């Protein structure tokens, strides 16, 4: 017994290191939804409390630029409303109006941006009390930003599109060719579009938009343009590089997108064998 105690005392530093490393690895790869959710909620609460006062202070320095951007965005939205109005005059959209709008949006402010990690998470100043829930889409002035990952009462975290775990359904604006958009972890303005078969014509400069196949984003939100296309010698799919229109390193205001029919869609998918 004595030699066991002696060994523990002698190798106490190594044993402590091994124990703490195991805790870190378990923490890192924890797949238990309940525990990871509990831990993430409490860390989100403290993270929000610490980052918000700094953000309030620093936001005064770029008010002029923000005003210009908001004005530009207002102008774009006004044009969209006018366009919709013109369309409804021509077409009878009564059926669609009866069912109510599918998507709604909630403006939010980004209080912590991140784009230097491989799994970037953003922090928003809106949470459950504002109607934000897990798995809602988030868009910016010029395109998609990410998907809500975790919520507390007053804050929420967003899985950025610059996160190597995330795949977004995307398609070509001019055709209905779909693919999966993902980030390789390198440049914050470049992503890869996978699963585009070589039978489809693809050109540099083509616009990529959201596909609408998932319930996170409505169809047709601009993502970026194709900056590079490689056709492999013996493969059936292109290697397509997409340049994002949104500058992910300079975001301040975003919109959380809610889908009124999301539960209905999920329920239907779960019932389908």
């Amino acid at each position: 017994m004595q030699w066991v105690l002696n060994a523990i005392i002698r190798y106490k530093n190594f044993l402590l290191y091994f124990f703490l490393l195991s805790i870190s690895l378990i923490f890192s790869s924890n797949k238990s939804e309940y525990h990871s959710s509990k831990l993430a909620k409490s860390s989100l609460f403290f993270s929000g409390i610490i980052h918000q006062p700094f953000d309030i202070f620093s936001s005064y320095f770029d008010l002029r630029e923000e005003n210009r951007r908001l004005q530009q965005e207002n102008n774009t939205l006004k044009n969209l409303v006018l366009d919709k109005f013109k369309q409804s005059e021509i077409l009878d959209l009564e059926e669609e109006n009866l069912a109510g709008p599918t998507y709604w949006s909630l403006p939010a402010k980004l209080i912590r941006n991140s784009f230097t990690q491989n799994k970037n998470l953003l922090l928003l100043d809106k949470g459950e009390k504002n109607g934000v829930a897990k798995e809602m889409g988030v868009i910016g002035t010029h395109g998609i930003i990410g998907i809500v990952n975790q919520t507390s009462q007053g804050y929420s975290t967003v899985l950025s599109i610059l996160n190597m775990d995330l795949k977004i359904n995307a398609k070509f604006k001019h055709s209905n060719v779909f693919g999966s958009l993902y980030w390789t972890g390198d440049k914050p303005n470049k992503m890869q579009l996978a699963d585009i078969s070589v039978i489809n014509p693809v050109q540099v400069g083509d616009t990529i938009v959201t596909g609408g196949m998932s319930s996170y984003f409505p169809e047709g939100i601009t993502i970026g343009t194709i900056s590079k296309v490689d056709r492999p010698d013996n493969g059936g799919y292109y290697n397509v590089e997409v340049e994002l229109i949104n500058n992910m390193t300079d975001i301040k205001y975003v919109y959380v997108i809610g889908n009124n029919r999301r539960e209905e869609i999920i329920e239907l998918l779960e019932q389908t064998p």
Partner: protein
Amino acid sequence: MIQYYSRFFTLAFILMLLQMLIFDRVNLFGFSNPAVYLIILIVYRLTQDQFGYILIGFMVGFLLDLLTQTAGAHSIACVSTAFIRPVISRFALGANFDQPNAMFTGTLLTNRMLYIFLMIFIHQLIFSFFAYFSMAHFWIIFKHSITNTLFTFILIAATINLLQPKQ
């Protein structure tokens, strides 16, 4: 001893706050952020018990993981750097590695700089490796480690020079 620990933990608290609020937002070249909180691990007295030092390393990393929403990479990097520090200090500081204040007096400037550089580089390498956790991203891991190390080294070497007690 109590006075040393109270000063040390105050410094640790200030550095972690600065890291979260300022240095994590620098984004030099679009991806590089200096890890100035490593001063905590670098200046901790070399003669103190390593058991306590490993615990401090873990606490610093774990707190940063919670507050910056990263999944364990800070904890793993800090606790590993704390564990292998005796090897680094013996290699870099030479015969006088066991001086209580070897970071400031009793050692050559070049040795101290080598010690700081190795502590930062090993930490950044472990951090980037566990953040990406894939050898397919070897070049990105290497690029991030080198850039962050150089950037952090300049800041930490300058800060430690300022903290140096006057002879």
